């Protein structure tokens, strides 16, 4: 008997979710009031889940690391949200959205989960419009759509270049209403620091009040993690500064499986790195690839001259430009999926054709679009993105092409969940980017917003009842149980240990070391030798951290350095697990590219016969190697193919 049970319902693909809902257990209204649910995180997934569960009558406690739920990093998503509405009448359907997502994920996601995601996608758009989300509209008053990578239809709904902001504010408004109605209690500037398990079930959390520095205990009948991804393991990423993997990591250390940790997405269109002091990377929305054309010089001497500042991009004649995505992938052109576009950029730069002072950049050019559509239209579509670019780079993208380079953006891996979004710990659920479930080895653009809101509005509020129905007779927990005592003591000891290192390096100093190792060896192109080296180097980083760290100030007060140190301790260990997982997966798939495994044309080469599985890692204790279980991915409905974006 395999340890992994994904609990996928029986039946045809299109009937599984309906069948599940028809037969799952429900909780009646009187009992809902007696059940407490902790939701950690207030992004698209967390806020939508907290609001929905509160409206249904559960007693919800919602935790937010920032000063307001409206700041969660979902807010920064720019381009759009996918749905299978087929409003443009271009042949879209639930099946096609499902298929594109499975294919885009390089056949490493679960069919049943992805089909459900596509199924509920339309309800999300309805919900957001009802909340007053001002999506872009046509002159006739109906909703407008645009295209995103990996699709040949226009199914992306958007609100200028601020779709994430508008969807998050929609969820935030629903959450605010639930708070007003006392259905949800909100805790801002609190950070979860441990999960509490009683008799094998998730029963609460320890959270640190970031203002007072005090550790506080919270009990509940179920705990939901919606804390996003761990992209900041790389130090430089498009994630916000407080985005972290610690809540997920605490769950892992308490026994939840961590799935596909190596699967991280590198986004092709980010503003290139410019200096040692840089604190984060800024994404330029994928929607720019609707009208922008990506190129590098055809002649290596032109690229050289540009790097030395002797030539400008506008000096390069049309016939001397290599629109390499259009050349290599005629069917999808500039709109190939993110992993493909990122690797193609790296390939050109590694071959010596990169531009910018560092040679680690390619052009994203709007000259043709401005000629074709006029500057006004381009400004209406992308004005805020152009402004953002100009402020950072001090260069006008209406006149000179933008420079872009890939950067870490999203983590497809995360806490393992079954079809009900429950982790391997009963009563512990994970939603949004924090779980691993829907994007396989690569996420398509405009699908993160879809998944976060699908989980929070339309999936978890159903599936969590199937668990809670058995909990109605369980009385509210007291937080003086020995399990809470122990968890609080553990984290207190850890904090004391950190405070007492009294070394000489700041947290950021060591985080940058970690980032260099990760980007160099566990980044866009990985091989066995490099990964083994990474594992050795990460041990050194860990040692450096635990011997040379310096945290000024005291623990029982506002202490930003201590907060960062707690997160970095986990990032280092997440980095180790990523490297182990990447080493184990002797194939290339989606965002995981093993240099040893590529086709003669340099495309990702999967080995379906050996690696059609989700790797589920189980923690065994400090300094012990984790154990990996495999959840087989048996495709019943889709035939796996080599991904083809050429024809």
């Amino acid at each position: 008997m395999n340890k992994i049970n994904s609990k996928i319902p029986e039946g045809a693909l299109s009937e599984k979710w309906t069948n599940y809902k028809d037969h799952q257990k429900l909780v009646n209204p009187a009992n809902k009031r007696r059940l407490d649910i902790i939701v950690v995180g207030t992004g698209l997934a967390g806020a939508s889940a907290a609001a929905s569960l509160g409206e249904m009558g559960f007693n919800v406690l919602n935790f937010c690391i920032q000063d307001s739920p409206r700041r969660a990093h979902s807010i920064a998503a720019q381009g759009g949200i996918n749905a299978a509405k087929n409003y443009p009448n271009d042949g879209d359907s639930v099946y096609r959205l499902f298929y594109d997502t499975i294919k885009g994920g390089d056949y490493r996601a679960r069919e049943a989960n992805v089909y459900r995601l596509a199924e509920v996608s339309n309800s999300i758009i309805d919900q957001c419009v009802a909340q007053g989300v001002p999506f872009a509209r046509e002159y006739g008053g109906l909703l407008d759509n645009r295209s995103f990578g990996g699709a040949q239809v226009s199914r992306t709904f958007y609100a200028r270049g601020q779709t994430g902001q508008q969807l998050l504010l929609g969820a935030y408004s629903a959450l605010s209403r639930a708070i007003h109605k006392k259905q949800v209690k909100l805790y801002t500037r609190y950070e979860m620091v441990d999960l509490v398990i009683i008799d094998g079930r998730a029963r609460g959390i320890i959270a640190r009040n970031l203002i007072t520095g005090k550790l506080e205990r919270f009990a509940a009948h179920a705990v939901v993690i919606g804390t996003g991804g761990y992209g900041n393991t790389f130090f430089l990423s498009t994630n916000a500064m407080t985005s972290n993997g610690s809540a997920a990591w605490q769950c892992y250390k308490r026994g939840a499986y961590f799935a596909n940790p190596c699967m991280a997405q590198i986004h092709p269109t980010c503003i290139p790195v410019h200096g040692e002091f840089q604190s984060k990377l800024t994404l330029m929305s994928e929607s720019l690839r609707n009208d922008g054309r990506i190129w590098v010089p055809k002649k290596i001497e032109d690229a050289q001259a540009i790097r030395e500042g002797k030539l400008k991009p506008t000096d390069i004649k049309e016939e001397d430009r290599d629109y390499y995505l259009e050349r290599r992938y005629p069917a999808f052109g500039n709109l190939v999926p993110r992993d493909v576009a990122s690797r193609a950029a790296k390939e050109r730069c590694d071959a010596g054709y990169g531009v910018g002072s560092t040679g680690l950049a390619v052009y994203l050019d709007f000259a043709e679009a401005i000629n074709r559509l006029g500057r006004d239209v381009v400004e209406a579509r992308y004005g805020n993105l152009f402004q953002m670019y100009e402020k950072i780079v001090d260069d006008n993208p209406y006149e000179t092409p933008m420079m872009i380079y890939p950067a870490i953006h999203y983590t497809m891996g995360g806490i393992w969940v079954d079809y009900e979004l429950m982790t391997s710990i009963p009563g512990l659920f994970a939603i949004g980017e924090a779980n691993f479930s829907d994007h396989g080895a690569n996420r398509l653009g405009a699908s993160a917003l879809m998944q976060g809101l699908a989980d929070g509005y339309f999936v978890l509020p159903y599936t969590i009842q199937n668990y809670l129905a058995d909990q109605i007779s369980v009385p509210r927990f007291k937080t003086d149980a020995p399990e809470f005592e122990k968890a609080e003591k553990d984290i207190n000891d850890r904090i004391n240990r950190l405070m007492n290192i009294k070394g000489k390096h700041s947290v950021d100093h060591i985080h940058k070391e970690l980032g260099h190792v990760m980007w160099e060896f566990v980044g866009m192109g990985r091989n066995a030798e490099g990964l083994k080296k990474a594992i050795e180097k990460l041990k050194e980083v860990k040692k450096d951290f635990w011997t040379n760290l310096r945290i000024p100030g005291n623990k029982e007060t506002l202490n930003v350095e201590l907060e960062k140190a707690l997160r970095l301790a986990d990032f280092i260990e997440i980095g180790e697990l990523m490297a182990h997982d990447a080493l184990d997966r002797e194939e290339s798939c989606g965002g995981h590219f093993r240099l040893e495994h590529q086709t003669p044309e340099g495309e990702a080469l999967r080995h379906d016969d050996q690696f059609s599985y989700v790797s589920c890692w189980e923690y065994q204790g400090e300094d012990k190697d984790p154990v990996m279980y495999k959840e087989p991915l048996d495709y019943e409905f889709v035939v796996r193919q080599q991904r083809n974006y050429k024809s």
Partner: protein
Amino acid sequence: MDKDINIKVKVWRQNGPKDKGHFETYPLQNISQGSSFLEMLDILNEQLINEGKEPVVFDHDCREGICGMCSLYINGHPHGPDQGITTCQLHMRRFDDGDTITVEPWRSAGFPIIKDLMVDRSAFDKIIQAGGYVSVNTGGVPDANAIPIPRDDAEMAMDAAACIGCGACVAACKNGSAMLFVSAKVSQLALLPQGRVERKQRAKAMLGKMDELGFGNCTNTGACEVECPKNISITNIARLNREFLKAKFAD
């Protein structure tokens, strides 16, 4: 071209809400003009930590101008001397060699100081909780295209909805008024059919909460509009006033 500059940063240090607070001046050498303002503060903090001192506390998160977390009053302007951007989008190329840059927190009765440059803006959440939403539960809503919305209305709603809730409007206002913030949300929802049903109680409830939380009133100086990083227009305040008066007359 960007070059390296030597500057002094005069920063407000305040150990807690009850502490009196004072300015401290720190010299910084060789700051690249290509770095962002917050990266300059990162460098300052790295320097302070290396000297065994406590770093300067300030709010920041996305560092791409959308989360609304960063909130610095720089040389007398919320979000600094540049127009239409947040603090995190401000770059050091706006400053010259030898400059002394004054950095203060938002100062307003509605935003008590927590520490150094970090303030408590939870009052904004409370105003939204008072009515800044459409009362719909999850599920059971009509098809997204069931109600056509004129494109111009949707665009105007979007202009208002672009507010990031940073509080620069309050910090800029001599009365410490939150009218621009409140009017942006009221306008967004009043412009859309989905929000019209509750427009009266929304305007009253949000304004009532704003008053209750100690924000001042609007005297039309327009400072908020000038300093708003998202260029939210004060025509929204006019709309809010209309909404409020209509609601009052209907009582």
